[in-house]
């Protein structure tokens, strides 16, 4: 039996509500800085929710999505772009952008470029064109699980030998009038207008919903030998991917967390690890009453003894189609720096979520952290989990 091709992370880039760039975001995440503020992009004074986690980048809608995707890509490629051609592919998590409301009322037709930019695969096409990537190109649109599944899909393609390198990641822009209206009508958003900085509080007893965020995360994934041959820095290895469907209800998650547990177990199985090997879980932890309860039950089902857990959505809100990629990058950085990022605003852990080892201030692991797991669970019941392992053993640790 031939050995499975191993997949490593050789470069990363991201733009988030906490900052432009990997190091800015990482430092702010470790400090548990706040990325949630009153909405700046439009006048939200009459809205039931008047805050969001916006990026400090001008623009809105589809053009901003494209800008963020390229900013994250450019950072990831700062050390050099992968060779163009058919051995390079792109797989991004992204959703269709909504046409601006003004279009419905203005007399002149939107430009062709404006319409084309709304397509869910517009960022994927843009990234592939920028790189001259003629290998496999796909766009995953599975709500909050999109970019987690995009990374998984990219890993599978490299393992099979279809490509040597994949650009994987995700992008989303959510601070838009109809998003705020729609998700607030759904009752999914925090309404803590008097203190937005306290609104996103995963696993806290007083959480009341998620905070709309936005951003982009890009990872350069390579077959390990390919990376070693070209002397690329290896930041971490992607060792496991698992996903599942809840097949429960459109509007909520099963209270026993079984679907989420299945995704985590699949990812562990794929990595050849046991739950005891995992040293940190970056939870989906949206700060909604249902998700955090359901996810905590899933963690208890999989992990017999407590594992350090945090949700970085406390700092930066919910990046939806981009959250899987950004949180995967945070797991890579946790392994690189041996630091566990905390959950902001977790003051009073919800007893209903059981006895979790919450990371409430950044925690140093002094070389003990070998494997991390990150979760992403989407509306409609799609679950994705990824396992990242330290570059140690992959050669040429940075």
């Amino acid at each position, binding site marked *: 039996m031939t050995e499975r091709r191993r997949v490593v992370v050789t470069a990363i880039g991201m733009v988030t509500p906490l900052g432009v760039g990997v190091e800015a975001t990482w430092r702010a995440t470790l400090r548990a800085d706040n990325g949630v503020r009153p909405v700046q992009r439009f006048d939200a004074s009459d809205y039931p929710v008047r805050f969001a986690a916006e990026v400090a980048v001008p623009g809105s809608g589809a053009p901003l999505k494209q800008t963020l995707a390229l900013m994250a890509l450019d950072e990831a490629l700062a050390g050099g772009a992968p060779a163009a051609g058919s051995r390079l592919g792109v797989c991004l998590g992204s959703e269709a952008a909504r046409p601006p*409301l003004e279009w419905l009322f203005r007399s002149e037709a939107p430009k062709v470029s404006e319409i084309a930019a709304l*397509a869910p695969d517009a960022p994927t096409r843009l990234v592939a064109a920028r790189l001259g990537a003629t290998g496999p190109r796909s*766009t995953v*649109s599975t709500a909050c699980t999109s970019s987690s599944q995009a990374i998984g899909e990219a890993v599978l393609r490299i393992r099979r030998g279809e490509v040597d390198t994949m650009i994987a990641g995700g992008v989303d822009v959510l601070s838009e*009038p109809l998003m705020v*209206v729609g998700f607030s009508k759904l009752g999914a958003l925090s309404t803590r207008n008097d203190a937005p900085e306290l609104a996103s509080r995963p696993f806290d007893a007083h959480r009341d919903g998620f905070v709309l965020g936005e951003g982009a995360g890009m990872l350069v994934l390579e077959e390990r030998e390919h990376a070693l041959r070209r002397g690329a820095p290896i930041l971490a290895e992607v060792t496991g991917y698992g*996903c599942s*469907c809840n097949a429960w209800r459109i509007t909520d998650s099963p209270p026993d967390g079984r679907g989420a547990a299945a995704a985590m177990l699949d990812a562990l199985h794929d990595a050849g690890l046991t739950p005891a090997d995992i040293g940190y879980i970056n939870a989906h932890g949206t700060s909604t009453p249902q998700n955090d309860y359901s996810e905590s039950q899933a963690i208890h089902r999989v992990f017999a003894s407590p594992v350090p857990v945090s949700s970085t959505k406390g700092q930066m809100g919910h990046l939806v189609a981009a959250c899987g990629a950004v949180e995967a990058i945070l797991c890579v950085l946790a392994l690189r720096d041996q630091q566990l990022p905390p959950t902001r605003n977790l003051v009073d852990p919800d007893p209903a979520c059981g006895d979790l080892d919450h990371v409430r201030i950044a925690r140093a692991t002094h070389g003990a952290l070998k494997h991390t797991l990150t979760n992403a669970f989407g*509306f409609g019941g799609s679950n994705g989990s990824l396992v990242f392992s330290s570059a140690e053993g992959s050669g040429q640790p940075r």
Partner: protein
Amino acid sequence: MTRILGIGVVTALGDDPAAVCKLVAGGASALAASATLAGLPDTRAASVVGPDLAGWLMRKKDARLLARAARLALPAAGRALVGLPAGAAEETAVFVAVGREPPDDADAEPSLLAMERDGQLDRDRLGGRGRELYPPLLPLKTLPNMVLAHVSIQHGLRGENGTFAGDAAAGAQALRAAELAVEEGRAPFALAGASFSGVDLASARDRWRLGQVAPPGEAAVFVLVGPGEPRGEPLPWRLADAEAWERALGDCGPVAGLWHLLG
């Protein structure tokens, strides 16, 4: 190796895969003037009548959560799954391809009208009366992965999954993902499909502006993939001819990546 164990289709030329193939090969077309597209330079579309969801929806109240693509998908997926062995749903994978999900104008119309003043968007009304009238479940109806969500819920499919977005290539990607999930042992069976509806004014108008002059269509194709040797002969070329399908059923987006399976 994998083989196709079941197939289900919903098209404007009917729901029987072999009959649809025969009609397309014979030059039949479902394109006809559509009142929905009134005002456009070409009002032709290939619209599906129905579909009848009786027997394909466990809870009738879920119907209000179904956008058009999900409505088309449920009967097609259900027919494809008829041969799924009992007890196998738990580990069955499901991969779906979708196009750009159009906003559900009918649901949102009262809200949108309430946002207008003198033919312009009035932002005060958007945050006020427009917001009050906005349908609370609309976000859950129009998310692109809702086709996958409804299919998995209705049939209890809990395995690996994914929603690919885009054109015909996305349909082919969904099929390939399903085949590989079975071949690589990650799922004993996998459902693959695509569902699309472009027969609404907003989408059709955008298509015209983009220079996509093929009339819009709507359809769903799902197949159940399982282990085994493939059966059958390669398709006659004309059945795999995308243009022939487009002349018969309009532009069906990602479903076009699966037409060749109907042979």
